[in-house]
């Protein structure tokens, strides 16, 4: 199954793309998505040390399992306001 991860701000800038598509044999956990992202784009490793993940618009824990209809976002530390 394919999981697309949306990227923002400095993560988007580093990756050079607004999203990255990852391929998994079965529904991965957030931790597995994280690991796959770093393998595909090692330059993201530094910033990902302080990133959160969002699944379907909610902050997700590392052990949450992602299905193929989930929207996944990589959330760098926010700075709105």
């Amino acid at each position, binding site marked *: 199954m394919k999981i697309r991860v949306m990227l*923002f701000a400095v993560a988007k800038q580093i990756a050079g793309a607004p999203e990255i598509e990852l391929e998994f044999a079965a529904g991965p956990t957030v931790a597995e998505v994280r690991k796959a992202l770093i393998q595909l784009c090692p330059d993201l490793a530094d910033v990902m040390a302080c990133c959160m993940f*969002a699944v379907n618009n909610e902050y997700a824990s590392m052990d949450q399992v992602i299905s193929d209809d989930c929207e996944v*976002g990589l959330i760098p530390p*926010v*700075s*709105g*306001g």
Partner: protein
Amino acid sequence: MFEIVDQPIDVPSVLRSVAAHSTGATVLFLGTTRQFTYGKETIQLEYECYHAMALQKMQALGQRALEKWPIEGCAIVHRIGLVPVGETSVAIAVSTPHRVAAFEAAEWIIDTLKREVPFWKKEMYADGQQEWIHPTDNSPTP
């Protein structure tokens, strides 16, 4: 009123949206692009957001505030795109019967928005440098 806009925020309409006859107090917070931060000169900020999540989190903030304080009206409007020095990036308005709750709720909403809602700002400095701001500690921000 919970909105993400890419144009200047219409502050009078934000205030009108929280007006009610049961209201004795209204507190409005405006965050504006500041020219100098720790001595560095900013020309403008560029904001981006995770639109669907940000809007949902803004609405959830309004709901959580309603559970904490007797709020008559609540509005959160955030601007994205370029915001020049002196212009407003975020407007938060809260109206309540008595003033203590309006101050507490407005301050709680902006504090929580700055910690939890997926907006990001890029500083565009006078010296040409550009930098995404990703606070990793509790450094004070306006």
